[in-house]
């Protein structure tokens, strides 16, 4: 591939790092939480003297979780000659963006997006630090299996990530000897899932797994309870957000299950991070992907140090060679495919309006 934008912007006394996140649109809440954590990391790094004797500066581009917007945003970052990218929330927009960065040979650390389609592209520039969808699907399926829930309904929202998770969940449930009694899609822009819930109710599921994002997840949960559908309701990490409890109402949200990498609140040793975050952002709790974003930024800095250069190939190499990087709640090492060699999915449960660690 050609190496357009090969000159990087590390001259002067700043290193420019690109951030690609949805800071507008339906997923803006999570996107902004991630950005906050990255800013916090950068502040700390810079006050500790920066890296390679330079300060880090962030260049933020909004992908709005929209593939076309993401490509333009990605090109914008490339044109600003950033040395690397941290970001990537929605898989649907991260997929095309990662191609742009690959073309420009710019390394990208993906902090949240985790569709299995991402590593399938085999880009040597792309590093994923969230656990992957198949693992997540497995943990959800296993949980259902353990609880004796055999008849499972799966609902996705036709986004790249949700469809992927739904497909893998189906596979895992079936491998566990369970039965998929419904495999449905919704349009996340719509609000009324009445007839879908009626359909579920008539199928009497033991468990329902919704793999989309929290806005629709909350509404669905509410209507799920209203209709009195049987079995428990589980969501994927796209719905891992306090907003889902708000939207559904804490009463309906009780007993909601979530498959996700735990947030900082549950991570031993992250108290400091939570405290700093809250004091910096007016009592706002870190979001579900804040810790991962924080780790991503620190990982990049670590790699820069090890590479001792802002040369892209060297950064890539350093990232690839990451050994036991200690982030908040995770130890990062990469597999052949530049994915986490060990993922960290858990099942959480909402109890009394709060997420708690279930398994």
């Amino acid at each position, binding site marked *: 591939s050609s190496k357009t934008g090969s000159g990087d912007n590390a001259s002067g006394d700043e290193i420019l790092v690109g951030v690609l996140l949805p800071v507008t649109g339906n997923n803006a809440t999570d996107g902004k939480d991630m950005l906050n954590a990255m800013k916090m990391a950068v502040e700390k790094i810079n006050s500790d003297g920066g890296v390679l004797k330079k300060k880090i500066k962030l260049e933020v581009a909004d992908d709005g979780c929209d593939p076309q917007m993401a*490509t*333009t945003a990605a090109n*914008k970052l490339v044109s600003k000659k950033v040395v690397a990218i941290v970001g990537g929330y929605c*898989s649907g927009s991260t997929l095309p963006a990662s191609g742009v960065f690959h*073309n420009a040979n710019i390394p990208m650390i993906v902090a949240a997006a985790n569709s299995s389609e991402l590593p399938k592209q085999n880009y040597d520039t792309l590093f994923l630090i969230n656990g992957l969808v198949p693992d997540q699907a497995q943990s959800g399926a296993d949980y259902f299996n353990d609880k004796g829930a055999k008849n499972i309904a799966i609902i996705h929202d*036709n986004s790249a990530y949700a469809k992927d998770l739904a497909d893998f969940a189906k596979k895992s449930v079936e491998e566990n000897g369970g039965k998929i009694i419904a495999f449905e899609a919704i349009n996340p822009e719509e609000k009324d899932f009445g007839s879908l819930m009626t359909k579920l109710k008539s199928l009497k599921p033991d468990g329902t797994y919704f793999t989309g994002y929290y806005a629709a997840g909350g509404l669905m949960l509410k209507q799920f309870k209203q209709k009195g559908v049987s079995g428990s309701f589980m969501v994927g990490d796209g719905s891992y957000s306090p907003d889902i409890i708000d939207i559904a109402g804490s009463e309906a949200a009780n007993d909601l299950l979530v498959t996700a990498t735990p947030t900082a609140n549950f991570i031993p040793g992250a108290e400091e991070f939570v405290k700093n975050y809250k004091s910096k952002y007016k009592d706002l709790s870190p979001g579900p992907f804040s810790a991962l974003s924080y780790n991503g930024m620190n990982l990049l800095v670590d790699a820069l140090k090890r590479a001792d250069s802002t040369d892209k190939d060297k950064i890539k190499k350093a990232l690839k060679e990451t050994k036991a990087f200690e982030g908040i709640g995770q130890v990062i090492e990469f597999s052949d495919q530049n994915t986490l060699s060990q993922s960290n999915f858990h099942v959480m449960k909402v109890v009394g309006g709060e997420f708690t660690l279930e398994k």
Partner: protein
Amino acid sequence: MKKYKKHSLLLLVIVMFILPLLLDIYWLDVLTLVLFYVVLTQGLNIVVGYTGLLDLGYAAFFAVGAYTTAILMTTFHWSFWLTLPVAAIFAAVAGIIVGTPTLRLRSDYLAIVTLGFGEIVRILAINLDITGSASGIYGIPRPTIGSYVLSSQQDFYYLILIVAILSVLVVYRLGHSRIGRAWVYIREDEDAAEAMGINRIRLKLLSYATGAVIGSLAGSIFAVKMSAIAPLSFSFLQSVMILLAVVLGGLGSIPGVVIGAALVIVLPEVLRGAEDWRYLIFGVALVIMMIFRPQGILPKKYETEDRSDPEEETNDKNHSISV
């Protein structure tokens, strides 16, 4: 006068060819997107501007081109260039499929039917396996010319630039032919056109098909340029944006529509700095532009002669109720 026009056009083309040397990759990308829109708006211009058929689902043809190329190149390993005629044929057929049931419909019913078709195409893309369902198709190979692989921003810029110039030429020539005139007659008064011996059914279908082929061409190139395509790029909003560009520029006016395409893409980019205010400003700007230029920025003029009396010129804006 005419010579002057020719020269300035030539100059414009030369500037467009030199531009990539002067722009950074971001603005080059924006400009590339503008050129995609130039192609798309020319295609839609035939349908809406010339023939007067309101099409709210034009992105569907863009999708047909993109997916045809993507599928043929990834699954069947075709050469890019060979996918183009296939995409064009599919699009023409799609155009005729959309066109046939809509022939008897008045324009607003037409709008909803085309909108419906657009949505159906998008939903099919989301749900079918062959289109890669929700995540779309990625890893679309780069096209090659001989042994040269088109891969850089510049390469695609030039590719789409050439197609844009061609599409402008095609629309210009069709527009100034017997066919183009017939389209305009249909737009102006369908019954009178029919009374003049113009087979409106055949010509409407031809209009749809031609528009569709041009749209699909843009789609094919879009697929290889992005190397990944997803259903979201072919949503109703995309159709609306293309239509927006056509009307904003001036229905039926080739240069107008080019300007419209540029505005619709560049304006939001320029406004990126305004952050949250971006689309609010864009929306207000649309309203203001339409109020001041209701016929579009560079409307088509059908009266060719310079009037002897410079005072004499129609200007309907002065009285608010048409009398």
